[in-house]
């Protein structure tokens, strides 16, 4: 199996872990977690310089989940990478668990508490500025939802990042086109998205958010334009990998019944790389 086949297999396993966790806990934001899974797998298995044994290394790359509600995929990836034991996730969303429904920096591997939208990019700007001040070579990645882009603070941060010429900062838009109420373009039009970021002074890369060669290429250092922050607009499918969840806003934070859970598992177990 080649590198990208391994990533596809890993992504299928992570999706299965997500489905298991959210079914077991009857909680979570499954739709956005499934749409961002391939982005996270690309980052954590192909791009980011992070060490689960030394999660606070000063030279580590930083990742911020600004769309903090899509925590399920994030937890499953961090657990799979060894930042904490997978068994810990059995307490997900349970009484007094630290594994709450949004990122919590008491958990190894998580940089900041997020969950209210529109915060992550500013924090990422601060981390990237600190890197520049200290002549560090680490990169900062911030994953945002597309519905999140209606938050004005995102654009304050976008303006600042290009003003400070933060080429060590990459924003990623999980462009699944849906938010809790329905289509982003019906709720609050955010297109033309690429033009918006370009006009704010960003290096814009469009990519298929489920294609590993494209994602890994998009995040590669070779695409950095000196003096410009980069935004990767990743076209994704909300609920990706589970047919009845795909493109259905109901699954923004829907809870599966037993039949739905079994069907989701069957579909994910049929991914070719899993069957190999």
């Amino acid at each position, binding site marked *: 199996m080649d590198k990208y086949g391994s990533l596809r297999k890993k992504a299928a396993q992570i999706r299965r872990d997500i489905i298991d966790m959210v079914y077991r806990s009857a909680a979570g934001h499954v739709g956005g977690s499934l749409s961002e899974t391939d982005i996270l797998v690309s980052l954590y298995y192909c791009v980011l310089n992070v060490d689960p044994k030394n999660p606070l290394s*000063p030279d580590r790359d*930083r990742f911020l989940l600004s769309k903090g509600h899509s925590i399920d995929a994030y937890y499953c990836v961090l657990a799979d990478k060894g930042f904490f034991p997978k068994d810990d996730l059995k307490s997900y969303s349970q009484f007094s668990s630290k594994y709450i429904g949004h990122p919590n*920096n008491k958990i190894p591997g998580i*940089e*900041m*508490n*997020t*969950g*209210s939208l*529109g*915060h992550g*990019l*500013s*924090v*990422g*700007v*601060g*981390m*990237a*500025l*600190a*890197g520049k*001040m*200290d002549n560090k070579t680490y990169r900062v990645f911030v994953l945002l939802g597309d519905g999140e882009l209606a938050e*004005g*603070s995102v654009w*304050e*941060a976008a*303006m*600042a990042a290009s*003003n400070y010429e933060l080429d060590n900062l990459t924003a990623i838009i999980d462009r699944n086109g849906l938010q809790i109420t329905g289509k982003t373009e019906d709720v609050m039009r955010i297109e033309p998205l690429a033009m918006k970021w370009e006009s704010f002074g960003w290096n814009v890369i469009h990519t298929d958010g489920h294609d590993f060669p494209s994602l890994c290429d998009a995040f590669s250092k070779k695409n950095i334009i000196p003096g410009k922050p980069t935004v990767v607009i990743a076209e994704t499918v909300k609920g990706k990998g589970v047919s009845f969840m795909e493109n259905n806003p109901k699954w923004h934070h829907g809870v599966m019944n037993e039949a739905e859970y079994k069907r989701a598992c069957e579909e994910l177990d049929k991914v070719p790389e899993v069957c190999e």
Partner: protein
Amino acid sequence: MNTIHNRRVVCETLIELSEKDRDIVVLCSDSRGSASMAPFAEKFPSQFIETGIAEQNIVGIAAGLAASGKKPYVASPACFLTTRAAEQIKIDVAYSNTNVKLLGISAGISYGALGMTHHSLQDIALLRAIPGILIAVAADRHEAKRLTEAFNEYTGPAYMRIGRNPVEDVYDSDDYDFQLGKAITMRDGNSLSIITFGETVKTALEAAELMSTGGIDCRVINMHTIKPLDNDCILKAANETGAIITIEEHSIFGGFGAAVAETVVQNCPVPMKIMGIPDEPAVPGKSREVFAYYGISPENLCIEAEKLIKMKKNGW
């Protein structure tokens, strides 16, 4: 009459500290002039960040800097910083426990005639309900220096509230025992206590002096740290003096007086009077004029003191 602004002292102290501590970063939101931080920006351009008029962004950026080992000081008008960026303070600073120092400039009613948009009379109520933020106010320029030094030693989220105009000294020098969280008894007395902070410490001392001519022996406490409160000092005052006036340059709802009352009423109930700005847009004017309008003058404080002492004697 002192003419040195507390904000200027904060800047000078940060310049002194930055000579040795290169992790200090000052951030301004088009506010280096109003925050008196221009000298810092000139002296340490590589440790100064201008964010433009974007309070949410400035707090988020500061949190990111702190999470990367820097010691950021956000100097921005208190009115905008604490309400516009309230959620960034709650989440990126307090909840994420980042070592961000918030310097709320021209706080209270010190912007005077600029009106309610520029008054900051809710910041204490708002911030003290958020777990994990230390809140402190200096009574004069000497305390501003000590407080800034203490902030730099303290690791964790903290908010310093700073007025716009020079205030009269209440200390002779900066050589006195100052500790975060430890109130200072400025004048001892047993008839009642005035507990306050910031600019009104001076008013309280003047009131106590005036009261002494009428035989009232008033204790004056400078509660420079509003959170965590020095509860021991408050309860000692309640026990020993039996009546308390609080004064705050802040709304009387949910602020300092409320905080003191929470401690007093649950542990040692005594008659109290909470002086501050009532539930209305504050009247425009110079600080002393506004304070007097709302009864915060030495003369009126004497009247309030007599009422409380009477209540105390009558077994209220």
